């Protein structure tokens, strides 16, 4: 049993970073992730970590420095949010293409314009095809646990990982969390032994060469496969985490789903709010349930398909809109995963919580009521719906 303490999501992520004590952290401050960098810089100043901390002049350079560091065989982390992640975007693809196990603590925040500092998932959803593993956290405890696991996942899959928390709601909300003793975290993450490094005495490697038409596809094919294989590695790491620390994580969490007739699919902090509504509805005899996606990349489509196949009415909650005119990215992927089922469920989409708009209990209840309405009438009136916006 670890130490119980009250921490904000940012403090929890910074605490995980202290315990990981990476070789290098290169970062640039941005609301609402600034505190992570700030607290970590404090750890460094107080001698609590002996990490080399590079305070770069931009997020682009932060991730570029991380790439140089990871390419040199150093365990490397950073933190960012929103515009910062977007500024890193170019380097995100390079980090994953070079197969560098960098870990980002990411705080979800809306993207400009209009400028907004509050939570939605536009930033990480915009990076969903960048070849990074994405792990979403419901609360500070999950953020802490996920960040520790991320180090192992990245190093075994040789893919970079971003662990996300909802801006302000989790990043600045203080909650009760259990902190694992330092030594046990150290034991769990182990020593990093890089496979290839620029500092190899034996051979001079070249990283970041140019591919013409004769090799690029093969290299991408490798990366595609690595992402597929990462699923098993994530499960392995989660199992070991559970056996040591008694907190069980999968690719997603099922809450009262086994006999559910109505299910919501959601990522992040709203998952907790949905659980409260599910409990209330269950007391009233409504067979409600929740599937909370933890790992969005790689997308566990097969497992999600198998789980949702028998639930006739599903609402997918997206905290970002793809601006594609077909709703949010989670909706599109979940719906696609269910396509091959002969008697496939009815799946509708709710865009919610953009720019930090509060998603209240009655909003979630409304979604379940809408699903019950479809059940009664057999008719879908709105495929894509917008929750909590003034019409």
């Amino acid at each position, binding site marked *: 049993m670890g130490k119980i303490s009250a921490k904000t999501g940012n403090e929890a992520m910074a605490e995980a970073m202290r315990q990981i004590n990476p070789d290098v952290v290169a970062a640039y401050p941005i609301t609402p992730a600034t505190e992570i960098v700030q607290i970590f810089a404090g750890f460094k100043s107080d001698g609590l970590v002996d990490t080399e901390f590079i305070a770069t002049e931009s997020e682009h350079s932060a991730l570029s420095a991380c790439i140089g560091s990871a390419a040199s065989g150093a365990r490397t982390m950073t933190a960012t949010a929103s515009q910062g992640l977007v500024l890193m975007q170019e380097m995100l693809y390079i980090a994953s*293409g*070079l*197969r*560098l196990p960098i870990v980002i603590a990411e705080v979800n925040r809306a993207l400009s314009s209009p400028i907004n500092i509050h939570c939605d998932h536009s930033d990480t959803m915009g990076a969903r095809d960048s070849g990074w593993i994405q792990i979403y956290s419901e609360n500070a405890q999950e953020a802490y646990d996920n960040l520790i696991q991320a180090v192992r996942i990245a190093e075994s899959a*040789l893919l970079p990982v971003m662990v996300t928390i909802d801006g302000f709601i989790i990043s600045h909300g203080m909650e009760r969390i259990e902190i694992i003793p330092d030594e046990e975290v150290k034991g769990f993450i182990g020593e990093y032994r890089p*496979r*290839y490094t620029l500092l190899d005495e034996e*051979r*001079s*490697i*070249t*990283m*970041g*060469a140019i*591919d013409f038409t*004769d*090799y690029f*596809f*093969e*290299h991408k*094919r*490798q990366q595609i*496969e*690595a992402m597929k294989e990462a699923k098993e590695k994530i499960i392995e790491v989660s199992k070991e985490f559970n056996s040591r620390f008694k907190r069980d994580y999968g690719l997603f969490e099922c809450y009262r789903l086994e006999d559910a007739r109505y299910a919501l699919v959601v990522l992040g902090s709203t998952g907790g709010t949905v659980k409260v509504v599910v409990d209330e509805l269950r007391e009233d005899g409504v067979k409600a349930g929740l599937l909370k996606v933890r790992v969005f990349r790689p997308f566990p489509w097969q497992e999600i398909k198998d789980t949702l196949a028998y639930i006739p009415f599903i609402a997918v909650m997206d905290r970002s809109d793809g601006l594609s005119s077909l709703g949010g990215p989670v909706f599109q992927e979940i719906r696609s995963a269910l396509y091959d089922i002969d008697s496939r469920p009815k799946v509708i989409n709710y865009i919610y919580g953009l720019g930090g708009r509060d998603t209240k209990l009655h909003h979630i209840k409304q979604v379940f009521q809408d699903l019950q309405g479809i059940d009664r009438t057999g008719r879908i009136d709105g495929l894509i719906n917008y929750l909590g916006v003034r019409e």
Partner: protein
Amino acid sequence: MSLKTKGWRELPIGGLILEGGTSEMYKTGGWRSLKPIWSEEKCTHCLTCWIYCPDSAILLSDEKVQGINYDYCKGCGICAKECPTKVKAIEMVEER
């Protein structure tokens, strides 16, 4: 690394090239239209041609010029031009 194009399973990850200097397998001599001819008699081994050769194509042995490596020489003519006026040990001729 073999020149044979490999499938994705056989390639090193991340687009890495796992040893240095593999470009030597790629011969650039075919780019030449003019060919430098080096004269052993005239050469004073000042090494000016060597320090200015973009393709490391001046062959040396014991810090002395031995000739031109035509596998890589692209025929730019810098060596001939920069060979000191009084020496002129390299002459450019048409490739046949």
